[in-house]
């Protein structure tokens, strides 16, 4: 499961994960999705980009 918050700054990134995942799977550019969701800091962006949903 994705961590609830960014492990560096504490922003609640998990709340946007479902939308991020769906939009990227639908072919949108991850950069644009992140910009659109207002996830601007690179600590938070790597949380979504690098997450692997294992179970």
């Amino acid at each position, binding site marked *: *499961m994705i961590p609830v918050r960014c492990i560096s700054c*504490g*922003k*609640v990134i998990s*709340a*946007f994960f479902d939308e991020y995942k769906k939009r990227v799977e639908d072919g949108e550019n991850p950069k644009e999705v992140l910009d659109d969701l207002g996830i601007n800091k690179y600590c938070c962006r790597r949380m979504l980009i690098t997450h692997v949903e294992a179970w």
Partner: protein
Amino acid sequence: MMVLEGLEVKGEEGSNMEIDIKEKNDNELTCIVEDVDVSFINAIRRICTVEVSTMAIDTVSIFKNDSTLFDEVLAHRLGLVPLKTDLEAFVLPSECDCEDECPSCSVSLVLKEKGPRVVYSGDLVSAHEAVTPVYDSIPLLKLKEGEEVELEAIAKLGTGLEHAKWQPTTACAYKYYPLITIDDSCEECMKCVNECPRNVLEYDESENKIIIADIENCSACKTCMNNCEQSAINVDAVENKFIFKIETDGSLSPEEVLKNACDILNNKSEKIVAFCKEGAKK
């Protein structure tokens, strides 16, 4: 300044502090603060992060948890869910008259779900209409066919001094207002323009000189200085001027956090003033 009423103040009374809002939305506020010193703005920053209280889940009674998540992990995830906070409605447990828990210091949130499904923060049922998760879309756990979860979580006020889940702010920081000067020895070689990672500098063709296009975006990294062979460009800071950014987790608005931080600082200084007056009388 109100706290100094009745005391003799040498020099200028108060300060000429000025605040300009640069950017603002729900959970973020960026402002430019002028005519204050580092110690003051840093005091405000520290109080914002660790002394302003918010609501967060503190204890969890798990009656049933069939999911693959350990109880401890689930309780930890619940603690990190930000809750909308009304600071007027609750008191800190340490300041409450009750023994253990009561409606003026704690709120109960119940979770009871059956699989197969993903359980979200929005599934928490709060006993208090104002204390609800800021986001409904935080995945808490996954349940497979036939699995169940049943728990009661108790949310309380607390401060970041005790645990980071009670910090109302995520990013809360200031930087010096940058000051870039380019002198006559500049040869318009464009190195600084090309090397700046934040596109602060631009070349103005009509005037044939380098101009500073976006000073507030400068991070004072000095890459431009290090790449200038003429030593023509210099990066410094404006004295007593800061860019202050405060981002909250949504439990409180940035304005509420700032206002409460100032109240806390005010209370502290009032105590010192009262102490000084007492001392003078004796």
